[in-house]
């Protein structure tokens, strides 16, 4: 069965610190990978996505993620966080090879950035 694991439930960082949020997935085939963000009081928004090609993808607001196929991972990174990055971050996957349309989400990581 498909699953997505986000091992960090709550991360607290000071401004300017570097960020890496882990995401591992279990899926028997080619996948599309996504990171979504939910700012306080707002709806889910797409940060970045990987379908194919360069495994290092860049998204909005200085975020990037690297797809490592051998590790079934798609970790999210940002070199220097800002207070405005305080939000909940969700990793998601769907099956490109099966044509499945729905997304499987991890449980999310809450990021708190201290000014």
């Amino acid at each position, binding site marked *: 069965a498909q699953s*997505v694991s986000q091992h960090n439930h709550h991360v607290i960082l000071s401004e300017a610190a570097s960020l890496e949020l882990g995401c591992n997935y279990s899926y028997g085939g080619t996948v*599309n990978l996504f990171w*979504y963000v939910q700012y306080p009081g*707002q*709806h*889910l*928004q*797409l940060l970045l*996505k990987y*379908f194919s090609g360069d495994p290092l993808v860049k998204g909005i607001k200085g975020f990037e993620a690297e797809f490592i196929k051998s590790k079934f991972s798609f970790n999210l990174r940002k070199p220097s966080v800002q207070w405005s990055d305080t939000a909940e971050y*969700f990793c*998601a996957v*769907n099956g*490109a090879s099966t*044509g*499945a*349309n*729905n*997304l*499987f*989400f*991890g*449980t*999310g990581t809450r990021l708190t950035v201290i000014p």
Partner: protein
Amino acid sequence: GAGVSQSPRYKVAKRGQDVALRCDPISGHVSLFWYQQALGQGPEFLTYFQNEAQLDKSGLPSDRFFAERPEGSVSTLKIQRTQQEDSAVYLCASSTAGGSYEQYFGPGTRLTVT
């Protein structure tokens, strides 16, 4: 431009009542998804429409849950005889085509069953 809208934003229902949750997708979006998000969890897939056709309803937790999209635009998720375990945020998302395209999410409806 207008995004995905959902109504009501909050709904309190007594156990046993029926509820109807509405989703207005982005105009022209072919695909529409419903997800359920319990407290402290990520969204979980409920059902998927392509235009008016419900192509996947494998995530609906019981036969008390029913979704429709009769004209291929607005969708309604209906929950009959609500139970406390139905308390969650119900999210609607739309996209221009299938799952390989970005899904745009609405703000959700928070359902509380007392």
